[in-house]
C-alpha cells in the first residue's frame, strides 16, 4: 500500500458527454479516494451511469480529462481500464448465461497451463472468491441456472477477481436479498480497509448512506452537491437530487371519474422463463375513466408484467381482465388495441420504436386502418394523421419525415405516446414513461397524461421514482413481489411509499 488513505486516485475533470444533441454530462468534476466509499446519487437519467462508463473505459468523454494517480490517461477500452486497476460491476448483468460460473469469472483472462486453459486452478480460485462472498455453489454451474441475486454475486466475484484498486458498483444490490446486501457490505468494508477505492451507486438511498464515506449528487448532468458522511442525511440527498423547482404537476381536478374502464381481478401471471414462478400473484385493480393511477415498485416487483398482461403479452395463468366490462381473454394484442388498450412499453428502443422508420411511420403504425383508402394507404391521410399527432403530443421535430433516431430521448418517448394516442385508447398503460428522459421532458410527458385523463382516458403508469408518484396520480399503488402491498391517495408521503415497497426502513 503506497500513499496515505484518502489520497485521490482517480479524478474526472470537467467531463462533458454528448449523445447526439443530448448533453448527458455537462462538465462534471469527480474524485475517487483511496480506501473510501464514494456514493453517487441521482435520479434516472441524471448521468450517473454515463459518468461511470467513462471512468471505466466503456465510453469516451466528448471532452474533459481523466487523471489516474496524478497523470492524465485515456482508456480505449475496458481492458485498458482493467489493466490499470479499474473495474466495474454493471447495472445490467453482463454475464454469459450459457457459460459456467468459473468461465464467467475468468472470461477474457483465462489462466493458461501446460495444456491450454487450466480449468482446475480456475475452479479453485472461483470457489474461494465465491465462498468469500458467502455463495457456496459449484463453479461449474451454468449461470443461466442461478437466481438473479446469485448472478449478481458472480458478477461481483468477477470484478473482485482482478484485484482492482478502484471498483465501481452500479446498482449492485438491485436484485439482492437483505442478507446478501449485508454480506456485500462486509466485503466492501474489507476492501476499503485494504485501500481499495469504491464508487457505489444505488437507488436505495438509506442503504447507500449506510456504506458511504463521501456523497456526490448528480442532477441533469451536473454535480449539485458533495459532502462527507458526517454532514449529510436523507433529506439532504433528496433535496439535491430533485432540486428546488421540481414540479411534475398535480392530479387533474374539477371533474368526476367516469365508468369503470379497467377491472383486473385475481390476476396471476407466470414468468416466461421460469414457469414455477408467478410474477403477478393474485392482483386486483380497478381504474375509472379520467383517473390516473401510479404503480410504484422496485425492479422485479411485477409492474411490467402486469401492464404487459393487460396489453396482451405474457402468460396469464388465471384471473380476469375486463375493459369496460368486456373480458379481454383470448384477444390478441392487435384486437386489444382496437378495443382501446394502449401500452407505452418500458424499453423504448427495444419495444417501442421501429428504428428504421421515420417519425411519421412510427406514429401511425398502430392506426393504419384509419388511413386506408381503396385498399391502399393514403399518403395524404397518413401525413395528416402524423402531423396531427405530432401537434397533440408536442413532438419537437421539423416534420414527420425525420429519422426517429434523430430525436432526443424525450421526444422519442412522445412519439411512442403519440402512437398510442392515435389509436384513440380508453385505457393508457405507461411502463416507466420517464425512463431515460430529462427533467423538462418528464414534465411535458406528465402534462400529456393529465390532458388525456381530462379527455376521459383511464391512465395507469409505473415508476421507480417516488417523486413521480407524488405528482399527477390520483391514486398510488405500491407493488411488491407481484402483489399490491399498499395503496395511497395523492396525499401520501415519500417515506410511507418507500416503506411499503420494501425499499426503506420505515422513516
Amino acid at each position, binding site marked *: 500500500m503506497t500513499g496515505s488513505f484518502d489520497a485521490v486516485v482517480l479524478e474526472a475533470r470537467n467531463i462533458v458527454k454528448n449523445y447526439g444533441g443530448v448533453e448527458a454530462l455537462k462538465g462534471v468534476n469527480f474524485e475517487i479516494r483511496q480506501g473510501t466509499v464514494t456514493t453517487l446519487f441521482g435520479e434516472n437519467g441524471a448521468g450517473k451511469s454515463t459518468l461511470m462508463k467513462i471512468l471505466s473505459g466503456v465510453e469516451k468523454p466528448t471532452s474533459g480529462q481523466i487523471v489516474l494517480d496524478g497523470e492524465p490517461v485515456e482508456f480505449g477500452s475496458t481492458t485498458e481500464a482493467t489493466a490499470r486497476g479499474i473495474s466495474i460491476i454493471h447495472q445490467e448483468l453482463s454475464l454469459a448465461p450459457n457459460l459456467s460460473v468459473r468461465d464467467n469469472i475468468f472470461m477474457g483472462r483465462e489462466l493458461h497451463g501446460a495444456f491450454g486453459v487450466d480449468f482446475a486452478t480456475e475452479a479453485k480460485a472461483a470457489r474461494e472468491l465465491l465462498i468469500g462472498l458467502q455463495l457456496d455453489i459449484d463453479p461449474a454451474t451454468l449461470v443461466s441456472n442461478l437466481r438473479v441475486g446469485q448472478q449478481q454475486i458472480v458478477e461481483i466475484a468477477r470484478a473482485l477477481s482482478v484485484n482492482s484498486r478502484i471498483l465501481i458498483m452500479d446498482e449492485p444490490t438491485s436484485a439482492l436479498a437483505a442478507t446478501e446486501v449485508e454480506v456485500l457490505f462486509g466485503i466492501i468494508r474489507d476492501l476499503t480497509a485494504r485501500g481499495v477505492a469504491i464508487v457505489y451507486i444505488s437507488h436505495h438511498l438509506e442503504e447507500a448512506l449506510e456504506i458511504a464515506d463521501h456523497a456526490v449528487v448528480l442532477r441533469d448532468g451536473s454535480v449539485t452537491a458533495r459532502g462527507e458522511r458526517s454532514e449529510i442525511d436523507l433529506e439532504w440527498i433528496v433535496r439535491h437530487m430533485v432540486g428546488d423547482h421540481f414540479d411534475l404537476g398535480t392530479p387533474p381536478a374539477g371533474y368526476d371519474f367516469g365508468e369503470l374502464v379497467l377491472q383486473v381481478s385475481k390476476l396471476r401471471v407466470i414468468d416466461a422463463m421460469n414457469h414455477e414462478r408467478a410474477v403477478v400473484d393474485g392482483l386486483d385493480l380497478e381504474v375509472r375513466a379520467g383517473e390516473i393511477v401510479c404503480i410504484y415498485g422496485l425492479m422485479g416487483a411485477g409492474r411490467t408484467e402486469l401492464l404487459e398482461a393487460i396489453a396482451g403479452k405474457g402468460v396469464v395463468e388465471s384471473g380476469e381482465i375486463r375493459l369496460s366490462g368486456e373480458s379481454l381473454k383470448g384477444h390478441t394484442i392487435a384486437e386489444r388495441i382496437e378495443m382501446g388498450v394502449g401500452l407505452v412499453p418500458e424499453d423504448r428502443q427495444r419495444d417501442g420504436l421501429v*428504428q428504421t422508420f421515420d417519425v411519421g411511420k412510427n406514429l401511425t403504425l398502430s392506426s393504419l386502418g384509419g388511413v386506408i383508402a381503396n385498399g391502399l394507404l393514403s399518403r395524404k391521410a397518413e401525413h395528416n394523421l402524423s402531423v396531427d399527432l405530432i401537434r397533440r403530443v408536442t413532438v419537437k421535430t421539423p416534420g414527420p419525415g425525420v429519422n426517429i433516431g434523430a430525436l432526443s430521448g424525450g421526444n422519442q418517448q412522445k412519439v411512442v405516446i403519440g402512437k398510442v394516442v392515435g389509436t384513440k385508447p380508453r385505457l393508457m398503460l405507461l411502463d416507466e414513461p420517464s425512463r431515460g428522459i430529462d427533467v423538462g421532458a418528464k414534465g411535458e410527458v406528465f402534462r400529456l397524461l393529465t390532458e388525456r385523463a381530462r379527455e376521459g382516458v383511464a391512465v395507469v403508469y409505473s415508476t421507480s421514482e417516488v417523486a413521480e408518484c407524488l405528482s399527477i396520480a390520483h391514486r398510488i399503488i405500491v407493488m411488491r413481489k407481484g402483489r399490491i402491498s399498499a395503496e395511497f391517495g395523492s396525499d401520501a408521503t415519500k417515506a410511507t411509499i418507500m416503506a411499503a415497497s420494501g425499499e426503506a426502513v420505515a422513516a
Partner: protein
Amino acid sequence: MTTTLAPPVGKKTFSPINLLIEGRAFLALILIIVVFSSLSPNYLTAGNLLIMASHVAIYAILGMGMLLVILNGGIDLSVGSTLGFTGIIAGFLLRGVEISFLGITFVPSVPVVVLLSCGMGAAVGFLNGVLIARFKVAPFVATLGMLYAVRGIALLLTNGLTVNDLSGDPALGNTGFDWLGFNRILNVPIGVIFMILIAGALGLLLGRARFGRWLYASGGNERAAELSGVPVVKVKIWVYVVSGTCAGIAGLVLSSTLTSASPTAGNTYELTAIAAVVIGGAALSGGRGNVRGTLLGAFVIGFLSDGLVIVGVSAYWQMVFTGVVIVGAVLLNGLQYGRRPKKSPTQTGGGGQTAPADKRGNDPVPNSDHQPAQTGTSSR
C-alpha cells in the same frame, strides 16, 4: 432506399454522396453496359437486350420473393429447389396423371397446370413460413432443410431424369405451355412481362399497402411491431408463401423456355437471388430495401454474366466477377447504413440515444446543415 414509401414531405436531405450510394446499383449497371458495348458490337442491340432481360427475369422474380423474406429479417434458401420442383410438377401434369383406381388419366389444361404448379411453390413457402413463424425454427435452418428435401423429392419423382415433352399433345388438348417461354407480347418475352407485373404488384404491396408497412415494421423491430398491433406471425408466414410462389412462377418460365424440366434446375439460384437483393441495397438484418433496388440488382448480375459470355470470358471468371460485385455492394451497404445513425442526429440538431456519439468528433464528412438545429435540445 425508402423513397417508395416516403411521405410527401420535402425534409429528406440530398447530397451528391448520398445520391452516389443510393444509386450505386444503377451506376454499376450503366458501367456494365458501357464497358461491354465497347467490347462487343452485339451487346447493345435490341435483340440481345431482350434475350438478356429474359435471363434477368428469372433472377428478378426469385429475387423479389427473396426481398420480402429479407425485409422480414429472414432468408429463404429453398427457392432454387422450389424452382426445379415446380418445373417437374408442370412436366408431370402435362404428361397426364394416371389415377389408377379410377382407370382414367387426368390431363389438366395449361392454365390449370400453371395454377397447380404455382400452388406447389406456395405450399413449400407456407411450410417454410409455419416452421419459422409458429415453430420458431431459424429461417436459415428451416429453408436449408427445405432446400434438400424439395430437391430430393424432385429427383425422386423423375428418378433423376429430365422431363422433356413439355409442348403438350394436340390430341390431349394441352398444348401451349411453351408459350410462356417462347412467345412475346409487343416483342417482349413473356418472362419479362411476368417480371414487370410482379414488380408492379409487389412494389404497390410494399409501398402503399398496409401489409407492406407491417412487413417493414416487423423487419425493423419485431417486438415493437408486435406491441403496436402488427400480426407478426401472419406477416412472416405470408412472406415465405410469396417467396415460394415467386419461385414457382420462375420455375414455370424457365421450364417453358427450355421446353424441358430438369430436377436439378435452379441449383444455387437461391444465392443469385440473395445477391440481387443485397446488391439492390437491402439490409440482411431486415427492414430496409425495395423492389426497384432488387430489380437493378438482378439486372447487374444478369447483364454482367451475359456480357462476360459474349466477350468470351470463361465461366470461372464470371464467378469471380460476380463475387467481387456482391462483396462490393455489401461494403457500400455498410457505408450507407453505418453512416445513418451518425448523420441523422446533426441533420436535425437533435440527439438519438442510439448514436455512436464517440465517433462524431472526427467524422470526416461534415454533417450537413439542411435542418434547423432546434430539435431535441429545446426539450430540456
